C-alpha cells in the first residue's frame, strides 16, 4: 500500500520536474535547429522568467498576468540578445555561437543579480496554494498547471513548425541555409525568431515552476545543465525528443533518488544518459545525420 502510493507520488514529482526540463530542452533544440549551436544562456532565461514574474506581481495583482508579461519580456530579451550579441558575429559558426552563448549566460546572470537582486523570490501558484489528494498522492494544483501548460506549449510549437509558413521557413533555414536563402527565406530573421522562441520557452518554465521552488539568480546554470542533458537524451533538434528526454530525466531523478540513494541523484541520471548516448549517440529520438565529407 505504502509502496504503491510512494510510486505514484514519485511519478507525479518526476513528471512535473520532467515537464520543466522538457521546456528548457525545447529551447535548446529550437536554437540548435536554426544555428547548429548549443545556447548556454537558456538556463538564465528560466531564472529571469521567475524573477521578473515576482517583480511584476508587485504591480499586477494577478499571478497569471504577471507571468504572461514576464514571459513576453524575457522573449524580447532573447530577441535583443540575438540582435546585439549573435548577429554581429562575422562568421557565425556553430562553435562560435556556442562559445558566445556562454559569455551571454554569464552576462545575463550578472545583469539579473544587479537589477533583480540576490534574494530568492517566490509567489503563489495560479490556483493559490491548493493541494490535491488523489489515490494516496498529494500534489499542488500548480503541478497540473505545469504539466498542462507544457503540453499546450509543445502542441502549439508542433503545429507552428509543421503547418505555419514561418515555422516551415525556420525548418528550411535549419536544413540548408543557402538553399533557403535562394528561395527567399531570410536566414538571419529565422535565427532571431528561434532565439525569441527559446527565451519564451525558458521563461515559461521559470514562471510556472517558481511557485513550487522559488527563483534565485544563481539557479540558471543548473537549469541549463539539466535542460541540455534532456535535449541530448531525447535527441538534439527533435521536438518530441525534448519531451521524451525531459520526462525521462525527471523520472530517472525521482525514482533513482528514491530507490537507490538521494546522494547519487544526479549521478544516476547522468550515468543513464551516458549509457543511452553510448548505444544511441543521436539520442532516443534523434536521427543520425549523414554528413558528406
Amino acid at each position, binding site marked *: 500500500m*505504502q*509502496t504503491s502510493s*510512494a510510486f505514484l*507520488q*514519485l511519478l*507525479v*514529482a518526476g513528471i*512535473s*520536474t520532467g515537464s*520543466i526540463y522538457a521546456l528548457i530542452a525545447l529551447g535548446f533544440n529550437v536554437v540548435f535547429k536554426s544555428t547548429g549551436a548549443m545556447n548556454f544562456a537558456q538556463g538564465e532565461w528560466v531564472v529571469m522568467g521567475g524573477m521578473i514574474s515576482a517583480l511584476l506581481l508587485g504591480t499586477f495583482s494577478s499571478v497569471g498576468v504577471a507571468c504572461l508579461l514576464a514571459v513576453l519580456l524575457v522573449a524580447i530579451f532573447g530577441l535583443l540578445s540575438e540582435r546585439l550579441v549573435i548577429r554581429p558575429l562575422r562568421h557565425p559558426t556553430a562553435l562560435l555561437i556556442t562559445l558566445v552563448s556562454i559569455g551571454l549566460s554569464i552576462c545575463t546572470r550578472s545583469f539579473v*543579480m544587479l537589477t533583480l537582486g*540576490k*534574494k*530568492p*523570490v*517566490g509567489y503563489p501558484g495560479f490556483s493559490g*496554494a491548493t*493541494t490535491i489528494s488523489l489515490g494516496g498522492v*498529494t*500534489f*499542488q494544483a500548480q503541478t497540473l498547471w505545469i504539466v498542462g501548460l507544457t503540453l499546450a506549449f509543445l502542441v502549439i510549437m508542433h503545429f507552428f513548425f509543421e503547418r505555419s509558413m514561418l515555422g516551415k521557413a525556420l525548418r528550411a533555414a535549419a536544413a540548408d541555409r543557402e538553399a533557403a536563402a535562394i528561395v527567399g527565406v531570410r536566414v538571419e530573421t529565422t535565427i532571431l525568431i528561434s532565439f525569441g522562441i527559446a527565451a519564451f520557452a525558458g521563461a515559461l518554465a521559470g514562471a510556472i*515552476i517558481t511557485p*513550487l*521552488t*522559488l527563483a*534565485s539568480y*544563481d*539557479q540558471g*546554470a*543548473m537549469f541549463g545543465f539539466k535542460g541540455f542533458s534532456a535535449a541530448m537524451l531525447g535527441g538534439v533538434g527533435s521536438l518530441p525528443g525534448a519531451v521524451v528526454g525531459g520526462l525521462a530525466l525527471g523520472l530517472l*531523478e*525521482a*525514482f533513482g*533518488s*528514491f530507490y537507490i540513494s*538521494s*546522494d547519487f*541523484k*544526479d549521478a544516476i541520471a547522468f550515468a543513464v544518459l551516458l549509457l543511452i548516448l553510448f548505444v544511441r549517440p543521436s539520442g532516443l529520438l534523434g536521427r543520425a545525420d549523414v554528413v558528406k565529407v
Partner: protein
Amino acid sequence: MHLGRRSFLQLVPGAALALSDLRPAQAANEPLRIGSILSVTGPAAFLGEDMKAGLQLAVEEINAAGGINGRKIAWTFYDAESQTQKAISATRRLISQDRVEMILSGGNMSGIALAMAPLAEAAKVPFISSEGALAIVTPVAGRRWVFKSTVDDGDVLERIADYFDKKKIKKVALLADTSGFGQGAVAQMKLVGPKRGLDVMYESFGPADTDMMPQLTRIRDSGAEAIVCWTVTPAGVVFLKQAQQLGLDNRTLIHSYGFVSADYMKLAGDAAKPLLLASLKISVGDQLPDSDPLKAGILKLYRNYEARFGRPPSLYAAESYDAMLLAQQALLKVGGDPAKIPEGLESIRNFAGLSGVFNFSPERHSGLSKHDIVLINWRDGRFNLVDYA
C-alpha cells in the same frame, strides 16, 4: 669605539627589554592594520553583506572610542566573490602587500576559510574565522594562529538532541544538502547520533534542487518522528513546502542556524508554521530572560546596527562582529602586541560576545558551546523563543 645597536643591547642587558617595551608605545600612533575577506558577490553573497556590515560597525565603534590601546584600526577589505581561488590571492595580498597584523573573517564559506587557514598559519598572522567548519581550527597543533568565532555543528546537533530527549523522540532523519555545510553536519551527526541513542536516517539533496519528493517520501515511509534539514540555500523552502504537501507537518521539523532568515520564512509562508530553528540567541534577543549574559550586548547591537544600516542585524552579522570583539579582547590581554594574540585568545574565558559566551584554551580554538543555541519558531512575522535551555 663604535657600538652598533645590537652590541649595545648585548652590553646592557636591561636595554633589550626596555626597547621591546617601547615598541607598542611607538606604534601607538600607527594604525592597527586588519584585513578581512568576505564574499559580497556570488552564491554566498547574502551572508557576506551582513558579515561585512558587522565588521564595519565594529571597526567604526572601536575607532570612535579611540581604537585599541590607542591605535585606530585601518581596515582593508577584499571580496572573495564566493571563489576559493580569489580568496587565496586576496589572503596573499593581505599578508605580503598590505602587511596586515591580523585577518578577520574568511570568505563566509567554510571551504574558503579552510583554504586560508594554512596561509595565515604559515605567515604567523592571527586569523579569526567567522565560518562554520570545525576543521578550520583543527588539529590545534597545526593551527596555532587560527581561531573561530562561530558555533560548531557538533554542538548544535547536541543541543537538538537535548530537545529530542525532552520530547522523547528517538527516530530522526537528517536531510542535508551536498555542500560542505550540509555534509559537515552529516559527519558530526554520525558521531552525535549513536552517542545520544538516536536512530538516524540520512538523506541529501543538491543546493540548487527544486524537488525533494523522493527523499521526503522515503522519510515519511520510514516513520521518522523528526526531520532535521541542513542548508543555507532556498532549497530549504522547498523542503518546508513539500513536507507540508506530504502531510509531514505533524512531525517535528527543524532547520539549522544556517536557515534563520526572515526572507526565507516569508517565502515559505504557511509551510513555516510547524518549523523550529536551532539558532543563536541573537534572533530573539529581546525575548531572552534578563539574566542572560548576552542580552544587554545584543540589544545594544540591534540599536546601533539598525541606526547604521537601516535593518536588524542577522546572526551572521553577529558572528563577524564577534570576530572583531575577540581580537580586541585578545589585544587588550597581551598589551597590544599582535604577535601574542594567540596567547591572548587562548586565555579568554566566559567572555560574553553576541553569538554566545566564549571560552578558548590552548587545546580548543573554537569558543562557543551548545548552551549558546536556542530553539525558535516563526509566528506573526517574527522569530519567537520556544526552547531556551
